[in-house]
């Protein structure tokens, strides 16, 4: 084993501890109540799909639960073709 390997194998416990603290802070806050990020994700997608038909393959959703703030990133590819506009048809 290289010197680097030797050092990187050491002290994984502090990493475990920090990951657990962040995760459990979230899970405790969410306990008994619905998952805010998941609700936002579903409602945003529902609103958009009222206006255009979304191909599930063209939607990228990323969530990152951080210590003091979380991010929800929704990336939707909207084709330029006008016939996709549901609103126009309605």
């Amino acid at each position: 084993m290289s010197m680097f390997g030797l050092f990187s194998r050491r002290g994984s416990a502090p990493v475990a501890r920090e990951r657990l603290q962040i995760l459990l802070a979230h899970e405790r806050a969410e306990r008994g109540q619905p998952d805010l990020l998941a609700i936002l994700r579903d409602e945003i997608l529902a609103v958009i799909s009222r206006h255009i038909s979304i191909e599930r393959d063209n939607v990228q959703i990323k969530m990152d639960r951080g210590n003091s703030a979380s991010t929800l990133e929704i990336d939707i590819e909207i084709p330029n073709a006008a016939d996709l506009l549901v609103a126009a048809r309605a």
Partner: protein
Amino acid sequence: MGKVLVVTSGKGGVGKTTSTAALGVALAQAGQTVVVVDFDVGLRNLDLVMGAERRVVFDLVNVVQGVAKLPQALIRDKRIEKLWLLPASQTRDKDALTEQGVANVIRDLRAKFDWVICDSPAGIERGATLAMRFADTAVIVTNPEVSSVRDSDRIIGLLDSKTEKAEKGQRVDKHILITRYDAARAARGEMLNIDDVLEILAIPLLGIIPESEEILRASNLGSPVTIGNPASAPARAYVAAACRLRGEEVPMIVPSERKGLLDKLFGRRAA
């Protein structure tokens, strides 16, 4: 009136059944009347760990459903006086246990025994919630490992919300039992240490059971470690934990195997 103790964890394989058997024996050895109850319907194993697998006639489900009377289903331990086992059934029916049926059995056991120790199945499904439902005290068995600690936290949440005590606005008395602890690895920073686990879970510590070959040997033999090898490190740790359950103050140490010089020189094994 006896105390109802649930041994639970969320995660499987962390040592609930081993701990139920070892604590049950230790409490009975201290003169208490004890019944250990297997709630793992469909996957019973407490009978095997207790060495009573060939003596099971009736089980918890039979009693709950009224097929058998409680005294018919209780198995008396042949080695330890005042220790009894109520096995689970091997039925695959998930709804075999009803809440009212379990309530009745627990009420009857509470009247007969000082300690009713409920061995919870893994998970958070019906079996696990019924095992904790009527508990006064909970022992949450946790390995110093991320998935076990996370699941313990989840179980603590359930103990604070889904038990009868919680619904009445009371508290289940909760304790952490850390199992499979390797003090040397924790000292090298390779394993979560006791303070890490306690700080994260914020529950008082009942005991520290060191990683030991004696645990597998005990289940191989069907002889809980507190009977089979009372001088061993895990047995001493379980006896100390049982004393604390009874309210005694026992200094918290991590018992270790006493090794002779020859063991130290040649006792290291591969992997």
